[in-house]
């Protein structure tokens, strides 16, 4: 299993390159993971999406995919693609320290 060094700590990754243990995550780590995805600064709008994802994951056991984000996160599709270019659900899940969403939609 591969690992990534974030803020001096070695964190385990799953096969998709997301954190293997969501409990390793904290907000400082999120900022570092975001930088690795090319997002230099996490704004309040980014955090709305990240926090919604973590809440959904805790309740349902799966990270939400794009339609659920569009309908329920308070951020619409267009803005999601601006905040997290090239695949918002996948990128936001990685930054949120969650496994890649399993949904197709």
């Amino acid at each position, binding site marked *: 299993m591969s690992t990534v060094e974030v803020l001096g700590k070695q964190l385990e990754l799953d096969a998709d390159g997301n954190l293997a243990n969501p409990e390793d995550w904290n907000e400082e780590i999120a900022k570092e993971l975001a930088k690795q995805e090319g997002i230099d600064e996490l704004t309040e709008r980014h955090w709305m999406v990240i926090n919604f994802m973590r809440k959904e994951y805790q309740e349902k056991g799966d990270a939400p*995919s*794009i*339609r*659920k984000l*569009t309908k329920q996160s308070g951020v*619409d*599709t*267009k803005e999601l*693609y601006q905040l997290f*270019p*090239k*695949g*918002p*659900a*996948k990128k936001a899940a990685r930054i949120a320290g969650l496994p890649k969403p399993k*949904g*197709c*939609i």
Partner: protein
Amino acid sequence: MSDQIEKVSIIISKGSLEGVYPGLIMANGARMEGIEATLFFTFFGLDAVIDKRMDHLKVATVGNPAMHIPTMVGGLPGMAAVATAKMKSEMEKLDIPPVREFIEMIHDTGAEIYACKATVDMFHLKKEDFCPQVDDIITVGEFYEKSAGASIIFT
């Protein structure tokens, strides 16, 4: 990296509910993976982007052996409506949106949506007959130009 798909062009040529959704799901799925997507609607597939028709697409209950109902039964009045309602409710459970919402969402992801000029002329349609997400009416030649470097998927 070069063997990764970076761009897809998806042609939707059928106007039944089950004919339209696979292409929409593949287009949205491509965008979710960060793949560029272009949608090209042709022949009866145009119904999915015609403003007056897109909310009323039906499942074909005749001529489809995988429906597992006899052809004559499938042809009874109301069968298409029943099968359509059933399929729509199953799709909603899976978070698959209705056609109009799906087209809006796909367009918002940055995918481009085009209607086929030959079909538009054949059916005597105009730009204003389409939903606002249709970017343009283009010829097959223009479709190939826009698809440069893309994998083309015909549905």
